[in-house]
C-alpha cells in the first residue's frame, strides 16, 4: 500500500450516487454492491434501478444505458433521492442520458477511455464533451478506467474482453474510496460468486482494489466524504426489495395459515422475480408452477385454492388483463386468491422495465359486470411483506380474491427492513368444514352472517360434495339459478361482502394536522416516499399541508370521506392521469386536484414540493387560527 496522503474527509447527511453505463457494463451489480455495503455500514438506503427493456441494446447506444441510483444517509430517508450528488458514467451515452439530472457542482466521474469517436457518435456528440469545456459546471474527474484495469490485470490469464468486463469493479472501488466505504462485503461476495472461476475472482478483486487505490494515490481527488450511521430504530435489519418482501410475505402467510403456498406465474417483467424467489423455496413446501400463459397461471391458482391451498398468481398489467375473466370467476366462486400486479408503464407492452401506477382502474373495474375485488397497495418495498400477508388474511376471512398493486419502483427498489419475527406474526385462521351445514345436502353458499363469507369446503371431505362454477347460483344452495331476484340478490351480496371489509382495516392516518386544515396531499402506493418528504418539508417551512396515504384501495378506509372533508383542498399526486382522483371525486364529490406524471420514473420530492408551493397553502399559524374561529 502506498503512503497515505492527507485528504480532507467531509461529513454529509446523505449522498446520492448514480452508476450509469452500457447494459453490458454491470451497473446494476455495481449499484447493488454499493447498496449492500452501505446498508451493512448502518446507513439508511433507498435505491432506484433503471434499466432498458432490451437485454442487450447495441453497445454504446442511448437505448442501452442502464443506471442504478442509491441514496444513503445518516437519517431516515424515503426515496432514492431527487438528483445524484455523484454520477459515474462509463461511456458517452450514459453521460448524455444522465447529465441533466446532475446538479451544478455535482461530482462527475467519467471513464475517459470509453469516449472514443465511435461511442461519441453513437451518443450523438459532435465533439468530446470531456474535452470541450462544456462540463465546467461540474466537478469532473476523468479517469482512464479501461487502461487502468488493463494495467492492473497485466498478469491475469483472462482475455482482453474478459478483463474489460472488470471495469465496473474499478468504478465501484473508486466510489468506495471516495465515500469511505470498506471493501470487505464486496470482496466476500466476489469470492462466493466466482468460487468456480478463481481467475475471474482474482481479476475482479484486483480491479476493485485498483479503483480504491487510485482514489487514494492520485492527486486528482482533494476530498472524500463520509456518511455516518443512520439513527434508526434498534433492531436487526436486512436489505430487501419489494419483490423479495412480497415473496416472503406470501410464504409467511401460508405458514401462519398452517397450509402450503401455491404460486403460479408466467414470465413477465417486473413480476417474474416473485416466481423466481418462491421457486427457490421448495423445501418449505412451496409449489411453484410456471404456466403456459397468464390465464393458465391464474387458473391453476384457482384450482389450487379449490383444493385448500393458499394460492397466488403474480403478473404485470398486460398479464392482469389476460387474467381478467378468471378473476371474475374467482369472484363468482368466492374462493380465496391473491393476485399481485406489479405495475409497469403501459398500455399494451408499454415500458416493461419502467414504473407506473396506471392499473388502479383496471384492478378495481377491469372485468365484465359487477365484479367487486378487494385491492390493496403497499407504499414501500418493505411494506410488500405486510401487504402480502394482509392479502391472504382478507382473502381467507372473506373468501374473496384480493389484488395487491405493487409497481416496478417498489419491486426492484430496496430499503433496509427490520427483520420480522415469525412468532410476532398473527395466525391466519383457516377453517375447512367437515360437516354439512344444512339439514340434508351441504350448502356451499350459506354465508357467515358477519363476514358474508361462504364456507371453504374442500374436495376430499366426505359428505360435502358440491359443485361450483361461473354460472349464477342460487343463494345458499349454490345450484344454478337464472332467477332474476336471486341474481340481483347475489350481485348485491357479493358487493356487500367486499364493502364490509372496510370495517376490518385500519383507519386512514393523517400526517400533519389530524383535525384537518388547508391542503391535504393524498397518495397511494409507491409515491409515499416523495409525498411524505415533500409534505414534511412544507410543514417545516410553515405551510398548512398534511399528507395521508391509502393502502386500501377497495374498499377505502371508512374514514376517508371525513378526512377529505376536513381539508379545504385535496391534491392527489399519481403516476397516471388521475385514476385515484376519479374514484375519489366519484365517491365523495370532493373536487380533488391532480399532480400527474407518466414518465416511467417515480416522483421527485421537489416536483411534489413545487406543486404544493404553487398552490400557496395557508401558513400553519393561519390555519390554526381558522380552526379556532
Amino acid at each position, binding site marked *: 500500500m502506498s503512503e497515505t496522503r492527507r485528504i480532507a474527509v467531509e461529513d454529509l447527511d446523505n449522498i446520492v450516487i448514480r452508476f450509469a453505463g452500457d447494459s453490458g457494463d454491470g451497473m446494476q451489480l455495481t449499484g447493488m454492491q454499493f447498496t449492500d455495503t452501505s*446498508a*451493512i*455500514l*448502518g446507513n439508511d438506503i433507498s435505491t432506484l434501478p433503471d434499466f432498458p427493456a432490451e437485454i442487450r441494446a447495441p453497445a454504446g447506444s442511448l437505448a442501452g444505458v442502464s443506471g442504478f441510483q442509491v441514496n444513503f444517509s445518516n437519517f431516515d430517508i424515503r426515496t432514492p433521492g431527487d438528483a445524484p450528488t455523484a454520477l459515474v458514467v462509463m461511456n458517452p451515452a450514459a453521460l448524455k442520458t444522465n447529465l441533466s439530472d446532475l446538479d451544478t457542482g455535482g461530482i462527475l466521474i467519467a471513464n475517459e477511455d470509453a469516449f472514443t469517436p465511435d461511442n461519441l457518435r453513437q451518443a450523438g456528440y459532435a465533439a468530446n464533451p470531456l474535452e470541450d469545456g462544456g462540463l465546467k459546471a461540474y466537478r469532473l474527474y476523468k479517469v482512464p478506467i479501461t487502461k487502468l484495469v488493463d494495467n492492473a490485470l497485466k498478469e491475469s490469464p483472462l482475455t482482453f474482453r474478459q478483463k474489460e468486463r472488470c471495469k465496473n469493479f474499478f468504478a465501484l472501488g473508486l466510489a468506495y474510496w471516495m465515500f469511505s466505504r470498506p471493501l470487505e*462485503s464486496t470482496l466476500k461476495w466476489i469470492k462466493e460468486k466466482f468460487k468456480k472461476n478463481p481467475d475471474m475472482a482474482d481479476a475482479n478483486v484486483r480491479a476493485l482494489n485498483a479503483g480504491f487505490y487510485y482514489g487514494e494515490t492520485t492527486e486528482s481527488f482533494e476530498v472524500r466524504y463520509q456518511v455516518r450511521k443512520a439513527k*434508526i430504530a*434498534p*433492531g*436487526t*435489519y*436486512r*436489505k430487501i426489495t419489494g419483490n423479495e418482501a412480497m415473496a*416472503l410475505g406470501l410464504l*409467511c402467510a401460508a405458514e401462519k395459515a398452517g397450509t402450503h403456498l*401455491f404460486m*403460479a406465474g408466467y414470465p413477465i417483467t417486473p413480476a417474474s422475480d416473485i416466481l423466481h424467489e418462491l421457486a427457490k*423455496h*421448495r*423445501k*418449505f*413446501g412451496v*409449489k411453484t408452477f410456471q*404456466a*403456459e*400463459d397468464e*390465464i*393458465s*397461471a*391464474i*387458473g*391453476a*391458482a*384457482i*384450482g*389450487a*385454492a*379449490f*383444493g*385448500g*391451498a393458499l*394460492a397466488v398468481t403474480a403478473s404485470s398489467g398486460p398479464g392482469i388483463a389476460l387474467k381478467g*375473466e*378468471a378473476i371474475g*370467476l374467482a369472484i363468482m366462486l368466492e374462493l380465496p386468491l391473491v393476485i399481485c400486479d406489479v405495475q409497469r408503464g403501459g398500455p399494451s407492452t408499454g415500458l416493461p422495465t419502467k414504473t407506473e401506477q396506471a392499473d388502479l382502474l383496471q384492478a378495481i373495474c377491469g372485468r365484465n359486470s359487477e365484479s367487486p375485488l378487494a385491492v390493496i397497495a403497499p407504499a414501500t418495498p418493505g411494506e410488500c411483506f405486510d401487504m402480502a400477508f394482509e392479502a391472504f388474511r382478507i382473502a381467507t376471512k372473506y373468501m374473496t380474491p384480493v389484488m395487491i398493486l405493487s409497481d416496478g419502483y417498489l419491486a426492484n427498489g430496496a430499503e433496509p427492513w427490520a*427483520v*420480522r419475527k*415469525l412468532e410476532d406474526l398473527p395466525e391466519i385462521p383457516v377453517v375447512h368444514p367437515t360437516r354439512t351445514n344444512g339439514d340434508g*345436502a351441504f350448502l356451499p353458499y350459506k354465508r357467515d352472517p358477519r363476514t358474508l363469507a361462504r364456507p371453504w369446503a*374442500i*374436495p*376430499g*371431505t*366426505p*359428505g360435502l*360434495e358440491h*359443485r*361450483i*362454477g361461473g*354460472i349464477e347460483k342460487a343463494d345458499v344452495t349454490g345450484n*344454478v339459478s337464472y332467477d332474476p331476484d336471486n341474481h340481483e340478490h347475489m350481485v348485491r351480496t357479493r358487493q356487500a361482502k367486499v364493502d364490509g371489509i372496510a370495517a376490518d382495516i385500519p383507519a386512514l392516518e393523517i400526517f400533519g394536522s389530524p383535525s384537518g386544515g388547508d391542503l391535504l396531499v393524498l397518495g397511494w402506493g409507491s409515491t409515499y416516499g416523495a409525498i411524505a418528504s415533500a409534505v414534511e418539508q412544507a410543514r417545516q417551512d410553515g405551510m398548512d399541508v398534511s399528507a395521508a396515504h391509502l393502502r386500501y384501495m377497495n374498499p377505502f378506509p371508512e374514514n376517508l370521506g371525513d378526512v377529505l372533508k376536513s381539508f379545504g383542498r385535496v391534491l392527489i399526486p399519481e403516476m397516471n392521469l388521475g385514476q385515484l382522483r376519479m374514484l375519489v371525486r366519484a365517491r365523495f364529490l370532493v373536487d380533488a386536484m391532480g399532480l400527474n406524471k407518466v414518465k416511467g420514473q417515480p416522483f421527485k420530492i421537489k416536483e411534489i414540493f413545487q406543486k404544493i408551493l404553487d398552490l400557496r397553502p395557508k401558513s400553519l399559524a393561519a390555519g390554526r387560527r381558522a380552526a379556532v374561529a
Partner: protein
Amino acid sequence: MATETATPPALTKKDFIAGQDVRWCPGCGDYAILSTAQGVLPKLGIARENIVVISGIGCSSRFPYYVNTYGFHSIHGRAPTFATGLKLARPDLSIWIVTGDGDGLSIGGNHLIHILRRNVDCTILLFNNRIYGLTKGQCSPTSEMNKKTKSTPLGSIDYPVNPISLALAAEATFIARTLDTDPKHMGKILLQAAQHKGTSFVEIFQNCIIFNDKAFESVSDKTTRPDNAIYLEHGQPLVYGKDGHRAIRLNGWKPEPVTFDGAVPPDGVPVHDETAEDPSWAYLLSRMDHQEGFPVPMGVFRRVHRDTYEDLMTRQIDEARKKLGPDDLQNLLTGEDTWTVSQ
C-alpha cells in the same frame, strides 16, 4: 385434506347421479356418455369425495352438475388449468376433465397441449361433435372443410384438426377414441383411461342431434360400423370388417386396406402395439381417419409410462427438504447479510 377413510363401501352407479335435472336436448349423445361414466366411476374404488369433475364451457361442460362428486364448471377452454393447479395442490384427488371440440381444441387448445405434455395425472374426456352446440351451431375446429353453418353460410374454409394427432404431438401418454353409440366399448376405454397414471386423453365421437346430426353416421350406425371402423386391440393384427375379412397392410410406411379370406391375415398386416415408445405408429393410425377407403380407428392408440408432473414436483420438494435440512423460515426471513442497530 385427503381423508383416511377405510376402503369405501362398494359404490354403485346410483351414488354418482346428482339430483339436478339433466338439461341436454332429448336424443343428445351426451346422455350416453354421462351414463357410461357414472357406471365406470364405482369400479375405480375411489371414494366419491376424492373425485373432482372439472369442465369448461359448452354443452358437454354441464357434465359436473350431473355427477355426484366434487365438481367445478369453469370458464371457456380453461378446465385443464384448474385441473393442473388442483392436482398439484392435492395429488390425492382423482380428477376428470370434460371438454368439447370447441372448448378443448379452439379456445382452450393451448392448455390442452400443455396439460398433455406435462402429464398431469387426470382423465380428459373430449366430446367431439364437430360443432358448437351451446351457441347454436357454428363450425368448430373439427368440422369438416366446406361445412355450411350459421357462421359459414358459404361453407367453412378451415382445415379441421385431428384430436388424436394433436394429442400425439403433445406427447400424451394415454390416447384413445370411442363413441357414444357403443357404451360397452366406451365403458372399457373410460376404465382404462381412469386407471392410467398420467394424462389420459379420450376423444368421444358424440352426436349433436340438433346442430350436426349424423356427423359420425358411418361409424355410429351399428350396421355400417364394422366396415367403417377398426377396433384397435393391443397385440392384435389390424383386422376389421363385418366378417373379419378386411385388414390394413403396411407397404413401407404406407398403410393400405386389403381384403382376405378371414383366416390368416396376409403378410405385412401389423400387430397393434399401444405401448410403443415411438409415437410414429400411433400417428400413422391417427391419419387413417379422413382417407378414402380407410376405417376409423377406435380404441387405445397409445399407452406409455412417464413420471407425472405432480410426482416430479413432490419429489423435488422431498429432495429439497432432505438436502437443505429442516425448514427454518425464520432463517430465510433474516437472510444472510444483516446488521444490528443498537441504541
